[in-house]
C-alpha cells in the first residue's frame, strides 16, 4: 500500500559537498554514480572554487554560506571535505541543522571535540560517519575477508605500511601545518590506525610512536610515522605512514598479519604489476572498485536504516582520533601513551 511519504523516502538523498578541493572530486564522482543520492549543491568559503565546482557538476547551486545550504529542504546530508581544523564547527552546524554527515577523516582533531560531535548527532538522531576510506578499498576488504573467514585464526600481530610519493603532492599545503591538519598522525595516520584496529577486531590500549621530519628539517609535521598499537586482547600492530621515503615514485602498500593459525601477507611487490620504462620502475595498480562509491553506499545504508549495523560507527571515528592524538603525544614524550589517558578515562 503506497503512502505519500514513500515517494519522499525513495527520492535520492540530497547531498551538498562542503569544501570543493582535491578530495571533493572523488565524492562528487561517487554521487554521480549513485542512484540513491544526488549532488544538491556546493559550499566553499572560496566563491571562485564553489562556482567552478558547481559549473563542472552541471550547474548545481553553490554558496559560500553553509547555513544557507543546510536550510534548504532538498538537502538531507553533507559530505564535508574541508581542512581538518574546520571539521568540528562544521559538524556541529550540520548536526544542529538536523542533517546527516559524511565527514572526511579525521572526524575532528581533538578527542573532546570528536566526542562532542558524536554526541551532537546522537542527540539529533542523525548519522555521522568518518570517511576512513581505506576500509572500503578492495585490498583492505580482501585482508578483512580472509581474517573474518578464519584464515589465520585469531590475529595477533599486524604490520601495515603505506609509503609513497602520492601521499601529498604540494609540500606547502595546509596538510603540513599542524595547526590546520592536527599533525600527520591525525591527517594520515588515522587511516592505518583505523584499518588495523578493524582487522584485529580488538580495542587499542597503548600507543608507542616515533616520528621523523625526514625530508627537510623545516617540516613542522613528521613525514614518516611509525605507530605501535597494543590491544586489550594481547595483539600488536606496527603501522608506518610515510611521505619521507625516497624516491618519491616509491609506492608501497605492505600488509602482514600473523595469527594463531597462520600468516597472511600482501607483499609490497605483489599487489600490482611492475612497469619498467625509460624513466624508471613503477607500480601499475590493479583495477579496483571505487572505494569512495562503496563508502557512499555504506553511508546511505546508515542513513536509510540508522538501527542497522554500520560499516563505520561514530565510536570508530572517535577512536581513530584518539589513536591519532595518542600518536602525536607519544612522539612528543618519547614514551608510550595509553588510550585511557587521551580518552580522559571514559571509553567510548
Amino acid at each position, binding site marked *: 500500500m503506497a503512502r505519500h511519504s514513500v515517494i519522499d523516502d525513495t527520492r535520492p538523498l540530497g547531498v551538498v559537498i562542503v569544501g570543493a578541493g582535491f578530495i571533493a572530486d572523488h565524492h562528487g564522482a561517487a554521487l554521480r554514480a549513485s542512484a540513491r543520492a544526488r549532488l544538491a549543491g556546493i559550499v566553499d568559503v572560496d566563491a571562485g572554487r564553489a562556482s567552478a565546482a558547481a559549473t563542472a557538476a552541471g550547474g548545481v547551486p553553490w554558496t559560500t554560506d553553509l547555513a544557507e545550504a543546510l536550510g534548504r529542504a532538498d538537502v538531507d546530508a553533507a559530505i564535508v571535505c574541508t581542512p581538518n581544523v574546520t571539521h568540528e564547527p562544521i559538524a556541529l552546524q550540520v548536526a544542529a541543522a538536523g542533517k546527516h554527515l559524511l565527514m572526511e577523516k579525521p572526524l575532528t582533531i581533538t578527542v573532546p571535540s570528536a566526542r562532542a560531535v558524536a554526541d551532537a548527532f546522537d542527540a539529533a538522531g542523525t548519522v555521522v560517519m568518518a570517511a576512513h576510506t581505506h576500509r572500503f578499498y578492495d585490498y583492505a576488504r580482501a585482508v578483512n575477508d580472509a581474517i573474518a573467514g578464519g584464515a589465520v585464526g585469531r590475529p*595477533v*600481530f599486524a*604490520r601495515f*605500511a603505506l*609509503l609513497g610519493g602520492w601521499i601529498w603532492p604540494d609540500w606547502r599545503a595546509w596538510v603540513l601545518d599542524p595547526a590546520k591538519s592536527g599533525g600527520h598522525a591525525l591527517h594520515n595516520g588515522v587511516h592505518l590506525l583505523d584499518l588495523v584496529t578493524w582487522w584485529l577486531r580488538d580495542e587499542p590500549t*597503548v600507543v*608507542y610512536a*616515533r616520528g*621523523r621530519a*625526514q625530508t627537510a628539517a623545516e617540516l613542522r609535521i613528521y613525514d*614518516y610515522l*611509525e605507530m*605501535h598499537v*597494543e590491544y586489550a586482547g*594481547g595483539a*600488536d600492530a*606496527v603501522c*608506518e605512514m610515510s611521505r619521507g*621515503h*625516497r*624516491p618519491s615514485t*616509491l609506492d*608501497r602498500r605492505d600488509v*602482514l598479519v*600473523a595469527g*594463531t*593459525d*597462520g*600468516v597472511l*601477507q600482501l607483499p*609490497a*611487490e605483489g599487489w600490482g604489476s611492475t612497469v619498467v620504462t625509460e624513466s624508471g620502475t613503477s607500480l601499475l595498480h590493479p583495477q579496483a572498485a571505487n572505494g569512495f562509491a562503496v563508502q557512499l553506499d555504506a553511508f546511505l545504508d546508515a542513513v536509510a536504516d540508522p538501527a542497522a549495523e554500520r560499516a563505520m560507527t561514530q565510536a570508530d571515528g572517535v577512536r581513530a582520533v584518539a589513536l591519532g592524538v595518542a600518536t602525536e603525544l607519544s612522539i612528543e614524550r*618519547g*614514551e*608510550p601513551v595509553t588510550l585511557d589517558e587521551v580518552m580522559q578515562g571514559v571509553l567510548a
Partner: protein
Amino acid sequence: MSDTTLGVLLLGFAGLGPDQDHQRSMYEPAFEAHPGFEIVDGDLDDPAVDVVSICVEPDRRADAAIAALQAGKHVLADKPLALTAADAAKVAAVAAETGKVCLPAHHQRFHPMIAAARGAVAGGKVGLPWNVQADFLVAGGTPSPAGELANFAVYPLDVVLALTGLRVRRVYARLTTHWNDGGADDLALLFLTHENGLTSTISVGRTRELADTRPAGLAVHRYRVSGSHGVLDIDASRPAVVLRRGEASSYTTSSGPDGRPRGRLPGWHGPSTVDRLLDELHAAVTAGRPSSPSAADAVHIAEIVDAARTSAASGQPVDLQEGSR
C-alpha cells in the same frame, strides 16, 4: 684462504632447552665438511686443539669460553654467548686481553641476500640509512623454553647492527606468547633507537607449524632499509627455487634459521650461512685478526636483549648507557 688446518675441539652438546644441540646439528657437520678444519679428540691442554666450538649449557658458556681463551685457544661460541650482558662482557674482556678470536655464531649476517645488502648500504646505494624494519618469524619446531627473545632475537639484531653499523641507544619492547603452551615468550617486538637517530623495528618469534613452511623454517625473513636516497628490500627467503608440488607444501628451497636446508628438499646451491661463518673463523684465526662479528658485538646484543626484558616488564623505553663497555 690459507691452507692451514686448524684442530677443533667440540665442547658441549647443549643449548637453550633439552632439544637444542647445535653442536651435533650444525657445527659438527659444518666443520667436517669445511676445508681447513679437523675435529680432534682432546682437551684444552692439547696443543693439537686450535679452536674450541662451545655448545655447553648457556649458563656455563661464558666460563667455558673464558677458560678456552685463557688456555690460548680460539673460540666459536653458539648463540647466545652468555645469558646476560655482564657475563658476555667478561668473555669479551678476556678475548681482548688474550688476542684470541672469539666468534659468536651470528651466522645470519652471512646470508647471501644480507651479505650483498651490507655491501650495498656501505656503497651508499640508499644514501644515509635512517630506518630498518625487520621480520624474523619461524614456523614450528620446538619452542625455546628460554623464550624466543633469548633464542632467535640475536639473529635479526645482529643483522640490523651489521647492516647499519650503528649501536643502539634506546629500547622499547613487547613480549607476548601466542603459540607456545609452555608460557615463554614466542613473539618479541623490538623498537630500537640507534646512534645518528636511526630507528629500527624487529618482529621475531616462532609461530605454530605451518604447512607451507618446513618445520622450524623461516616463514617470513626480511629487512627493509630506508635511506636518504633510496630503499633496499631484502627478502631473505630468497634466493630460492619456488616449487609447486602434489603435496600440501609449496615451500621454497632456502635454508632454515640454523643455515641448513630442512626436510627432503634441497637448499640453495652453495655454502650455507654456517659454512660462511666457518670461513670467517678460519680467516680471522689465520690472519691473527679479531673476527666479525666479535665478542664485543655479542655483548652489545646481550645489552639490547637485557634492556628489552626490562622494557617489556615496565612498559617503558630503556636507555642504554653511553659507550657502555
